[in-house]
């Protein structure tokens, strides 16, 4: 349908709001506010990534205009990007970040589906109450929870994790001083932080799984596992996939866990990308370089999301044939 002619045809006496293209006006306020607060800062960040911005020069100058000139910061071209991209620490953080995304997402999905299956089980009583309890972590501020987990994973013999290990007869572990143990600790904490959201989505998805399909599979002779693989899993695939994509992005941008735990340590070994950026930018207040790192991170996560959204067809609606 050619848009131009259909618009022309409808102009006549049709009430304004009923014109389809006028509906754009309904989306615009949200789009505008969002752009003002998110896109503008991104552009601003882009701007300062080409300067040697520091607090002292960036905030100099008066009036709103100085926002646009980045205070008195000087243009340095792509120097910041070169610095970042030639820094071995950056590439380490790059690798660790993707590894973290892969492992933590796997863990999160497994945990959430497991928990969701448990709290929707046919034979389980008090499911609703359990489901309400299970989301408590969502209501606590992440920074608090992470501080607590930091305590749990204390390398000290009396850290909770070590106490549990000792209670079952294992020896204690130097959680945060060992690279992979620290990495494991990040994963566990991340999974714990993210599971409520994932569980809610999975539970909702599970409730929509057709009972009839399960019955068909039962009659076909499928056991619990086969039914899970052939009926449940395919049916919840899309919502779970969606949740996974979101949560993958969250993992990619995880900052607080590594930072609070051991500042991406031990000795920068587990610096996730955002932590790397933060340390580079804020320890020495190199805003320009920090901006460059952020934008590189944004670019990666952007491409990642873009691929997922495309492949997962998340932007398709019901009325897009």
């Amino acid at each position, binding site marked *: 349908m050619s848009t131009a002619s259909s618009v022309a045809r409808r102009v006549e006496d049709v009430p304004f709001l009923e014109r389809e293209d006028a509906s754009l006006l309904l989306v615009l306020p949200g789009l505008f506010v969002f752009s003002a607060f998110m896109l503008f800062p991104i552009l601003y960040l882009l701007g300062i990534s080409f300067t040697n911005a520091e607090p002292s020069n960036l905030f100099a100058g008066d009036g709103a205009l100085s926002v646009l000139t980045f205070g008195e910061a000087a243009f340095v071209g792509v120097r910041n990007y070169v610095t970042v991209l030639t820094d071995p620490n950056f590439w380490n953080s790059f690798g660790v970040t993707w590894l973290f995304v892969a492992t933590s997402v796997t863990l999160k999905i497994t945990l959430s589906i497991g928990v969701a299956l448990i709290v929707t089980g046919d034979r389980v009583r008090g499911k609703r109450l359990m489901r309400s309890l299970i989301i408590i972590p969502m209501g606590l501020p992440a920074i608090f929870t992470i501080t607590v987990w930091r305590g749990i994973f204390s390398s000290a013999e009396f850290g909770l994790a070590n106490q549990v290990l000792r209670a079952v007869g294992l020896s204690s572990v130097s959680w945060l001083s060992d690279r992979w143990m620290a990495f494991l600790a990040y994963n566990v904490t991340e999974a714990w932080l993210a599971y409520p959201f994932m569980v809610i989505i999975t539970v909702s998805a599970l409730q929509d799984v*057709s009972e*009839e*399909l399960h*019955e*068909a*599979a*039962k*009659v*076909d*002779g*499928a*056991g619990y596992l*086969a039914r899970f693989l*052939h*009926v449940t899993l*395919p*049916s919840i*695939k899309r919502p779970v996939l969606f949740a996974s994509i979101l949560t993958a992005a969250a993992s990619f941008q995880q900052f607080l866990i590594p930072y609070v735990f051991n500042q991406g340590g031990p000795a920068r070994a587990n610096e996730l990308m955002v932590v790397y950026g933060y340390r580079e930018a804020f320890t020495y207040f190199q805003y320009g370089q920090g901006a460059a790192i952020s934008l590189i991170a944004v670019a990666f996560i952007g491409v990642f999301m873009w691929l997922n959204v495309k492949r997962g067809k998340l932007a398709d609606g019901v009325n897009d044939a």
Partner: protein
Amino acid sequence: MATVTLDDLRKEYTNGQIVAVEDIDLDVDDGEFVTVVGPSGCGKSTTLRMIAGLERPTSGRISIGGEDVTDVHARKRDVAMVFQNYALYPHKTVEQNMAFGLRMSTDLSKDERRETVRETAEMMGIEDLLDQKPDELSGGQKQRVALGRAIVRDPDVFLFDEPLSNLDAKLRTTMRTEIQRLQNELGTTSVYVTHDQEEAMTMGDRIVILNDGELQQTGVPKEVYDDPANEFVGGFIGSPSMNFLTVSVEDDGATTRLLGEDGFDYELTDERLRDAVRGHDRVRIGIRPEDVSVSGPGRNAVETTVEVIEPVGSDNYLHLGVGEDFIARVASDVEPEQGEQIHVAFDASNLHFFDADDGESLLYETEQSAAPTV
């Protein structure tokens, strides 16, 4: 292939507050095609699902092929079920859908499965669809695939839960014949649930009528049609429905007259019928629409008004002013005017009598089959 026996089967829901199925006894012979029919909520699906093992009976036993399977899990029973909404696995191709049961319940190799599926698909005429997903199929094709999926497993028993109710009228008749043809060919014991009495009548070797969780009557379709055990069965089987009239019985020893509203006056002469109504003050008469004929005035002819004429092409339905909703099915060339006064007559042999209180047939020979429990 096997027999199916239900023994005092009972199912309660919500801690006994809802009795979905009440003490049903039923024997299905090997290779028999039994249709179960009844109004919505009468417990048809519940019964079927208990046979499949999807619901556990509250009490009573189920045997398949002589073996008590009451405590056997659904997946261990060798039954196949066709669901109302087809329940095809949406993410699997037709072939995978059909092969799934084989994969789960047999040890066949991949190639053997493939072979079996292909054979069945050819039999069902869906060999071209094997690579498609259920979404891409029309209703009739889906239905065929669902049947194919059941058939390919070559089970002891087929269970059908209103498999045709999502299809349109034309397709329904086509599929109906198809299912019958298949069952004839395969000879597999089948239990077929439907709420459509015509489907039940035409398809079943034997028909089982349920109401309110209770068994009303079982029998060969024609017998049930001709000799309903109670008013419910009489009214439920046959379309348009049997007409009912409440009449008072006036028996002076010599003659028995049935008197009703709207000038209904009928004299019984047949001794068997007189015996049946004797001793009752009031009885319910049932007359099937096709047994009502337009006649001239005469003895036992009732004069009445034609309220509506419904032409259905092959016949005309006359809605008459007798009783509540009295329909006569007449040939399509009998076309009285709306509002015309006509006389209608019916043969005494076509009358059915029911107890005015409990609806039990006064003619039904109880020895015919197991006594219903009402």
